[in-house]
């Protein structure tokens, strides 16, 4: 069954069971064309399994997965020629050199036989992923980070329309991570990138959209802004002085959900989460009119993707 003009990846009610272990439990996912899409989730959330199903390496127990509108497991080489895939912990033939691996990968594509074109492409990729001067080095002599770079290079060899990267930053030092993110940024103009990671800073920097998975299910999906939510409900106030009794009076108010306090030198930082966002107008006057303390600073709390992520996956711990 082929669907045209839809999302580049579509997953509906995907289940995967390994013996007694349920790796996926009804996962849904939609990756629009032209996006850099972060795939987030704790270890064992089902990210790698979902990616393997998309690549046709593992068959689903139940459900559907489509790539370019075609059934992922039965799509065959025609669809895979449009995809670059970086597996988690990529392992290549240890006795082959970087250049040999890339040439081998390039020749697997129908247009990869022209030696001049292939050589230029390999040279460019070696340069692009930061392996310049290491083309003749054998895989067994590469560091973990260099193997990861080789993995990214081989994923790019076929000039794919879709890149599926399973933990592309794993094993890389901060500079290497930055380079991977820059690389994703470079290819985004003509390539949809679907990648899994644990590094939330990177996701926030480069992604258009994210999906958070846990327990084999989709927990949240949307643009970064949608996932972060509008932070109207949480405020930070820096107070000088002694706001005696204020905290006790406020926490019993029905429109206050919680108050966290922390000493910051001579100041006290209050993080107030409102149960009713429309009550925000009452908060500042209440603080400002308190005798014995001054409001030095007052603003909406910044909410990081990490906060949102932890909030989303937090509910899984009891499962």
């Amino acid at each position, binding site marked *: 069954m082929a669907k045209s003009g839809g999302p580049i990846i579509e997953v509906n009610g995907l289940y995967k069971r390994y013996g007694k272990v349920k790796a996926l439990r009804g996962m849904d996912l939609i990756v629009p064309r032209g996006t850099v899409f972060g795939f987030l989730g704790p270890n064992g959330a089902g990210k790698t399994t979902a990616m393997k199903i998309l690549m046709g390496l593992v068959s689903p127990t139940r459900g559907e997965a489509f790539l370019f509108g075609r059934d992922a497991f039965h799509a*065959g*080489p025609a669809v*895979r*020629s449009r995809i670059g895939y970086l597996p988690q912990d990529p*392992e290549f033939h240890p*006795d082959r050199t970087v250049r040999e691996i890339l040439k*081998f990968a390039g*020749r697997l594509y129908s247009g990869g036989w022209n030696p001049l074109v292939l050589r230029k492409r390999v040279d460019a990729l070696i340069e692009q992923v930061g392996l310049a001067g290491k083309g003749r080095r054998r895989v067994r002599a590469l560091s973990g980070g260099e193997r990861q770079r080789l993995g990214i290079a081989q994923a790019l060899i076929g000039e794919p329309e879709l890149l599926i990267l399973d933990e592309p930053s794993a094993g890389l030092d901060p500079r290497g991570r930055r380079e991977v993110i820059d690389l994703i940024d470079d290819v985004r103009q003509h390539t949809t990138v679907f990648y899994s990671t644990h590094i939330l800073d990177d996701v926030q920097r480069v992604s258009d959209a994210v999906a958070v998975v846990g327990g084999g299910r989709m927990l949240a999906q949307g643009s970064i802004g949608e996932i972060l939510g509008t932070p109207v409900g949480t405020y930070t106030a820096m107070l000088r002085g002694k706001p005696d009794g204020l905290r006790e009076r406020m926490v019993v108010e029905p429109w206050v959900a919680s108050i966290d306090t922390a000493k910051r030198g001579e100041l006290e930082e209050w993080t107030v989460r409102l149960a009713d966002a429309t009550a925000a107008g009452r908060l500042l006057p209440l603080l400002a009119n308190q005798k014995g303390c001054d409001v030095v600073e007052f603003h909406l709390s910044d909410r990081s993707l990490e906060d949102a992520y932890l909030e989303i996956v937090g509910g899984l711990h009891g499962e």
Partner: protein
Amino acid sequence: MASKRRYLAGFGGYLWGELLPWLGWRGLLRILVWTGLVNLVLYLDVVTDWDIGWVTLESLDEAVDLVWLFAALGAIVVTAGPVVAERRRGTAGWVVSKPVSRGTYIVGKVAAHSLGVAVSMVFIPGLVVYQWLPGAEHARGFAPPTPPFGRYLIALGVIALLTTFLVALVVMLGTLLKRRGPVTGISFFLLIFIFAPVVGYSWSKYTPGMLINWQRPTGLTPLADYVFGSRLGPIEAVWATALAIVAFTGIAVAAFRRAEL
């Protein structure tokens, strides 16, 4: 770089990639070591054995046996490792994530290893033997006829067919069993069992052993006898061996298509 969905999609590129380890310096080293080993053992065997009566014919019998034995052991060892290891470490999954069908992976593996074994372990060592063996006999004072080159080449071809049989068997076992120990162990066991001379049954003529181990009335193996003008062993054994290669490969493809990588 688009390609159509084909049963053997990406075969040319994959076969070339699989042949690479048999080429270049490492391939040359393998050929030198293998050829040196086979020829050294044969030289020590022939030159020090003054009891040989039929001289070249018996020497050739020794040569055929040695080339076959070394190539058979080599075929099992060099095939079992990559098939099992590639699957375990994820290289197989990586290859089929490219525009390569699973059929290509198996057929390419069988083809590349068969070709590599045939060239490096059968034809080159065998042809080097052909170069010096008659000369060595002359040096010992015998003047036997030189074995006909065409028939000798066909005899090496039969050995290559038998090593291809082993390669396909090992690839099939590697696809089904996933662990190197059992794959190698069972292959060695089957090497002894399948190639044991089984004569006297109605199905004997279909066994690969009839092509190599069956003792003729002359006391020589069929291939050595064939080189000097006798008929090859039963032709049914050739067809049965070829059919078994196709069957082993087919089973391996079917199993690999269902495999989770």
